[in-house]
């Protein structure tokens, strides 16, 4: 029983990271109208940047700051590529933007595996991960650390801020209008490109925060991590219903809990296989997602 409780807490903290990634992905899909498959790769890139800065400066805070900064910058400077595709086609072109995103992901992954740490996985200092401290809960091999609680709380706070932004502010209102009907949004005078650009900045910020939380949660990163997460985020979004923010929230958390439970009771290395088998079944049964697609 204790194992189950601990794994649920573990799963919630893992799941909340998925939630942040999926929410950013959905926001870009709804507002910027792109499939940014490689968004998690940008997040992993920011993990590498923060690792690099932490090692160089010895400062955790400088590392955190540079992670957030790098995600925002990377997201914003790549925005014109996607926006150029959209402008040229005169409308949303999800296929072409997906190819652009994949290409971007491959380049970044190559950079990560060639430039940093001679291609070996990186490990974050204990000062950040808190691995040197005693865990809060310990049940056999299973532990819940202080870091995991921090991750869970931070994710909740960021999701709340994001939903507040979406539902209580002028920019959020414009986001939702574009998400419902881009043509009509244009007719009421919402500048599509400019508003879309804001969504790149906001999701960049979200990605930066997520990269720090992931560094705390995982304690390490490798060049292939971004791709792995990219699969999961896309799968979660499709299973929840593409562009369905609430659905992404629920399914993201569920995936985290599911994976943690599998890791708790079975061999951890099979959790990806099992998760994807379950997702395959769901997607065959409900092609439009559990919560319905919003695009």
């Amino acid at each position, binding site marked *: 029983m204790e194992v189950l409780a601990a794994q649920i807490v573990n799963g919630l903290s893992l799941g909340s990271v998925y939630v942040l990634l999926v929410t950013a992905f959905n926001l870009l899909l709804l507002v910027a109208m792109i499939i940014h498959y490689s968004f998690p790769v940008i997040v992993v890139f920011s993990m590498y940047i923060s690792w690099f800065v932490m090692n160089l400066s010895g400062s955790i805070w400088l590392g955190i700051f540079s992670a957030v900064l790098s995600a925002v910058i990377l997201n914003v400077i790549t925005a014109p590529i996607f926006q150029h595709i959209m402008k040229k086609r005169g409308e949303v072109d999800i296929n072409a933007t997906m190819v652009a995103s994949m290409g971007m992901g491959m380049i970044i992954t190559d950079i990560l595996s060639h430039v940093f740490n001679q291609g070996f996985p990186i490990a974050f200092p204990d000062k950040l991960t808190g691995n040197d401290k005693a865990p809060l809960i310990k049940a056999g091999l299973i532990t819940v650390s202080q870091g995991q609680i921090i991750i869970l709380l931070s994710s909740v706070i960021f999701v709340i801020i994001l939903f507040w932004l979406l539902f209580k502010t002028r920019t959020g209102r414009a986001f*939702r209008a574009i998400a*419902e*009907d881009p043509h*009509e949004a244009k*007719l*009421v*005078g*919402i*500048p599509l490109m400019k508003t879309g650009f804001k969504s790149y900045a906001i999701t960049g910020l979200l990605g930066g925060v997520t990269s720090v939380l992931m560094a705390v949660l995982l304690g390490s990163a490798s060049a292939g991590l971004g791709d792995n997460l990219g699969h999961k985020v896309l799968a979660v979004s499709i299973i929840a219903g593409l562009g369905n923010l609430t659905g992404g929230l629920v399914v993201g958390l569920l995936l985290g809990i599911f994976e943690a439970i599998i890791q708790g009771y079975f061999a951890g290395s099979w959790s990806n296989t099992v998760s994807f088998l379950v997702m395959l079944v769901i997607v065959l049964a409900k092609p439009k997602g559990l919560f319905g697609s919003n695009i």
Partner: protein
Amino acid sequence: MEKNESILKIRNLSLYHNKIKALDNINLEVKKGELLVLVGANGAGKTSLMETILGSNVPQHGEILFKENEIKGKSVDYIVRNGIYLVPEDKGVFSSMTVLDNLLLGAHNNRKDVPLKLETVYDFFPVLFDRQKQIAGTLSGGERRMLAIARALMSSPEIILIDEPSIGLAPIIVNNIFEIIKKLNNEGYTIILSEQNIYKALKIAQRGCVLETGKIVKYGCSKELLNDEAVKNAYLGV
């Protein structure tokens, strides 16, 4: 500006959608404070013309002068900010959002005096006041059309383009909507209204023009058009 002074001048305007000619050498002058009807069957080019005035379509030829300034090629948000607003045909509102959100979207680019404008709009449409928090998708067809028109008022427009407001509504509701449009015109808004069913429209308008396959084929005051044999045969079904 005095009455009778023109607020919008369209000269030699042509628009192609890909290779299809949707507007063919349109010349049109709209006077400040008037209600002008665009009459035409499906596919005549009414929506194309309105979206071109709004800047959503970029025409291949011609010019559009709004208060003597060229607005062709300007962005929609620029044109909306400067006082032209479109009430689109069909859907017209964001159905996943509340009535209040829809109204505030109307003021997205004209953020001055929003509380005051809301008050005015609610005075005009008391139904909407009661339903501020309601999701627009759950409104009746007539209420939705009212919301779309009310949203236009939130942007402090000088010209309101209203695209086929009667589509899909019961006749009694249509009368209602036309009364509202007439009342807005009486309050000084310049209105361009597009309609297929022209009898009611010409009754409340001062002038009308008839569009056929992208061309203006008739242009005159409402009475003239109502008595025109060709118009009668084609559109009034008599």
